[in-house]
Every structure is written in C-alpha cells, then in structure tokens.
C-alpha cells in the first residue's frame, strides 16, 4: 500500500466517494480551481469539473444552507468551511438548521451533509484561525462529530461521514497535514463511535484526539521508560462517543487522564470525565484529570502558543502525579 500524508488523503477520500456515488459533490471557497486553501482538494476540479466541485463566494451561511437544501432534496453534499473558526459566521445554519431540521419535521427529511473544517492550534495562525472548534458543537443533538488523528482514520471517517445519512462535522487538524500513513481496504469504512486503542497499558488510561493523541503516545513512551504503563485511547469521534472503550480500560487501570488542546470549560474532556465518574465511580483509584489548554484565546507567538498547548513533558509530569496519587 502506498504512503500518503494527512493533507493529500483528503482529496483521495473525496474522489473515491465521488466516483462511487454521482450524487456526492463538493462546495466551498476556493475548493475547485485553486485546489483548496490548504491544497486538500487539489485535483478534484480537474477530474469532476465545475458541476460537482463548486467554488463559492465568501458566504459561509450560503455554503452550509445550500448543502442543507441540496441534501434535503436528494444530493449528498460535502461542504468545506476553510477554518473551523469560521463556523462562527454560519453557526445558525449548523446549530439551528442542519442539526434540528430532521427532528423539527418529524423525520421527513434526511440530511447526509458532511461539513469539513480545518481545525486546531499549533501552526502559528493566531486566535481567529486556531480554535479547536469541535467543542462548540458538543451540546447540539443532531450533529455527529469526527476528529480523525491519523491518515487512516481521516480517510475512513471521511468515507463513513459522506455515506452517513446524518450530518457529520469532520475536523481536519491543520497541524497534522504532514503526518504520513497508509490507506488500505481495511480503512475504507471506519464506523462512527468506535475508539481505537493506540497502546495498551495497565496503570493509567489516557484519552486524546488529533494532535494530542500523538503527544499522549509520546508521553506514554517516556512514562514506560520510568516503569509507568499507560493505555492511550483515541475515540476518533466525539458524537457518538465510545464510552465503553474508556470504561473497559478503566476496569484495568483505575486511573483516567484526558489530554485536549482546548480549555476545560464545556469541553469533550470535561464531559467524558463527568460521564465516567457518574457511571463508573467505584472504578476510580484517583480523581480523574483533564490536561487541557489555558482558558484564553490561542496566542500567536511561538513561545506563547507552545506554552498554551499541553506539551509532552507536561503530560508526562501530570500523569506521573496521577499514578502516584
């Protein structure tokens, strides 16, 4: 199987989905002739043409709303919001329209809309282009949320999202674009709501997504050298969330740390900790821990942004404390 990076696998997944289903099409700003602001859709316009790969005006509400109307009438749109932060200007379409339409109409419509957004911090884009925005959508029943952290997961979850009859927000982490991986027949259909165990250990369960999944794995390697054995779990989707995978690991480790590149308040990590303590209180040998970013906007200067994001060394020291609690 050929090696490919996280950036380039996006166009591969979209092209495969478009070849498989003539109702799949892509809309967004500069996704066509220019190949995408991050070159994640390069080549699609050349293969599929302007009918199926549509460059839009700078109109996020119209992009998402058009996708909704098209989905309702039988198409399978993929809408790109260039930076996840820009979801702020079409929040109504995402939160009040896309998420609620099926419900309000008593199930009269299907909304197979995939919304792709470039997400996350660590690349020096400053506060308005770096927000880990997946947390904005956790409290909106009706949306599914995918947060792929590897090439394989990105390919598989994109294909699954496009084939799904419900709205799925797919967050593509822009600090992972250079990450390499391989796509094979197995990655074709990774289900929503199925976590992956990155490494198995017995002393502590670390749950992390996207950029932090890789830092957590690196931290786990360093902890192993000290004799601390950590499980690292990547839930891969936040809605639905594979609670059972985490609970199952907790039954062996009795300690939980979530690592996230977002502030604590209202985050998926905070929700996970709340659910796990409520449902599995007796399993815990130590208070659950959220290792998160500061409660500030994402700063710009490299030193400031590095300090904002949980680092490998911070994960190591906080998990070490948790294990000896």
């Amino acid at each position, binding site marked *: 199987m050929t090696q490919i990076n996280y950036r380039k696998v996006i166009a591969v997944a979209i092209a495969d989905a478009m070849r498989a289903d003539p109702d799949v099409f892509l809309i967004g700003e500069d996704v066509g002739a220019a190949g995408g602001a991050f070159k994640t859709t390069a080549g699609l316009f050349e293969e599929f043409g302007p009918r199926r790969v549509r460059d839009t005006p700078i109109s996020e509400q119209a992009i998402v709303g058009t996708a909704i109307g098209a989905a309702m009438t039988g198409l399978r749109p993929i809408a790109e919001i260039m930076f996840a932060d820009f979801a702020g200007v079409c929040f109504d379409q995402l939160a009040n329209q896309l998420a609620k339409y099926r419900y*309000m109409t008593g199930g009269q419509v299907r909304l197979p809309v995939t919304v792709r957004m470039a997400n996350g911090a660590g690349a020096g884009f400053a506060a308005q282009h770096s927000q880990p925005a997946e947390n904005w959508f956790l409290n909106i029943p009706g949306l599914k949320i995918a947060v792929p952290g590897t090439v394989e997961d990105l390919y598989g979850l994109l294909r699954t999202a496009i084939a799904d009859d419900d709205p799925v927000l797919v967050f593509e982490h822009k600090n992972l674009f250079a990450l390499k991986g391989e796509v094979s027949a197995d990655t074709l259909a990774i289900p929503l709501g199925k976590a992956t165990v990155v490494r198995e250990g017995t002393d502590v369960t670390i749950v992390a997504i996207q950029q932090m999944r890789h830092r957590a794995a690196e931290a786990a390697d360093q902890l192993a050298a000290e004799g601390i054995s950590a499980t690292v779990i990547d839930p891969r989707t936040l809605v639905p969330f594979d609670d059972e995978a985490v609970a199952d690991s907790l039954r062996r480790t009795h300690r939980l740390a979530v690592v996230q590149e977002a502030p604590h308040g209202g985050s998926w990590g905070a929700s996970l900790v709340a659910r796990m303590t409520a449902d599995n209180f007796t399993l815990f040998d130590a208070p659950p821990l959220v290792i998160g970013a500061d409660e500030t906007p994402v700063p710009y200067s490299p030193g400031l942004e590095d300090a904002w994001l949980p680092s490998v060394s911070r994960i190591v020291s906080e998990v070490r404390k948790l294990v000896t609690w």
Partner: protein
Amino acid sequence: MPVELSPATASLAGGAPEGAADLLRQMWRIRLFENTVMDLFTRGLVRGSTHLCQGQEAVSVGACAALRPSDTMTCTYRGHGAVIAKGAPLDACFGEILGRAGGLCGGKGGSMHLTDVSVGALGSNAIVGAHLPISVGAALTSSYHGRGDVSVAIFGDGATNIGAFHESLNMASVWRLPVVFLIENNQYGEYSPLRSTTPIDRLADRAAGYGMPGEYVDGNDVVAVHAVMEAAVARARVGQGPTLIEADTYRQVGHSRSDPATYRPAGELDRWLARDPITLLSDAMRAGGAHPPPEDVEREAAAEVDAALRRAMDMPEPDPASRLRDVYGAAA
C-alpha cells in the same frame, strides 16, 4: 385548474380570470384556518406563540398557483398560508399546531415549523432569513439533475436586512439557479415599521446589486401576484436564473399572538382593510358574472375548515417516547 394569464401584466383590474374561484377558495381556506388558529390560542387550547397571515393570503396563493407539484417552497413562521397553498392537508396542519401525533411533523414542530415535504413544502423557518440558502440548495439539486423544477423562498420585508438574504441572492445569481425570492412586504418587522429599519422604499431594488431582475407587485391582487410569479418561474425553469419579487401587502393582525399592534398609526388598518385581497377578488368575480357566487366559495371553505379541525381535535397526543426519535436517522 391553471389560470390563463398574459405574464406579468394581468391583474384584477382586467376582471376576475377563469379559475378565479380556485384562487378565492384557497384564500378563504387560509383566512378561516388562521381565524380558527387565533381562536384556539385565545381559548388557551394551544401553547407558545403563533404568527398569522390574515390580509396576506394573496401572496402565497398567487405564488403557489404558479408552481407545479415537483417545485419546492420554503417559508417562515408566518407560513401557515404558504404551506396550505402548496398543498398540505388542513387537518394535519391543525394537528401539528395542536401538537398531535397526526400533525404534519408528529407534533415536533408546531405553528412555526409546518412542513410537508410530500407536497414540496420544504419547511417553515423560525430564524429570520435562514431558509433562503436552503431554497438555493433545493434549486441546486434541480439544476444538478437538469430537472427544471423551481424553488421558491417566501420571506418578510425584515428578512431583507439579514446576511443570509444577501449571501443567498448573490450565490443563486452567480450560479444562475432556478429559484424565486419572494418578499412578502407586510410593512412591519415585528413592531418596527419598514421605514425605520430600511433606507430604501422599494425592496425589489435590491435585486440590482445581485444582477437579477427585481419585480414589484400589488400583493393584495392575487391575479397580479400570480402573473408576476409565472413569469419569474418560467425564467427560472429555462435556466435564466433567479428573480427577486416584492409583493406589497399588510398584516391585518398583530405580529404574534400577544401583540395588539397598538403602534399602527390611526386609519392605517382601515385603509388596508378596504383593499382586503379576498374582497378585491370577490368584487371582481361579482362584477364579471360567470363565476360561482363568492359566498358559495366561502361557505364551502368554511365547511372544509370545520371538518378538518374536528378531525385534528380527534387526533391522539404523541407517544412521549416519540420525542427520542428523529434526532438521527442512522443509529448514533
């Protein structure tokens, strides 16, 4: 029965056309439906709020008469009339407002969200302007498949000041999509007169900024609305792109259930009542002779609305467990 008209020039001034009785019946069904809904709310039989369209019936009736069943329409919380005009059954409309299991949306939507996808009524939206891009999407599907179906978005004068309006007109025009944007200008956005929120007198003029035709029509003249819509729909169907239409009309009641509309200047309501769309068409029919007496049309519509209400009142309440369904289609 289709009404024969010469596009964009016909109006009631030329007399009531053949097919006028159908237009009148549709307007009476809506008028009496709305009166009944008002009554249900005042008697405390329905909770929440409702936004009625008495006085504005000619806009949705004239517009929907220009559509074929496979054409689609979106509208607002003030959309009972539009959804009925597009073909939704009266009993299921009442049932939805009453929150019954047999309502259009199984009781999950209510007064502000009447939707009947089976007749092309794709949804009533309670976020001002939000359905315009959704209608653009429906038009995109039509154009994608080369179906020739037209999509219509009906919205208020106030909605022309929200971003989604501008994004939608611009994108639809750039892509020459088969969509008609129909402004139901009832002179007020909630309690604010149009003039206090909008710096131009003719909202149709906004079309110029988006490179599409802008048409102005007397929204209380159902024949004129129908004619201007037919021309816009014909243009859209053959790929000539969107049109913006402003239909001037008047909300004879308050903005919502709790609004006594005391902010209206003295005499304004009376002036508009004298131009009531039902009266205008009825008078033209009487003057023209050959039509059935307008009183007969009213009586038949009243019987139909009464029977529909009775059926809706007999519909059971939704099973409480049904609240958990329809969040997702596939398992989540």
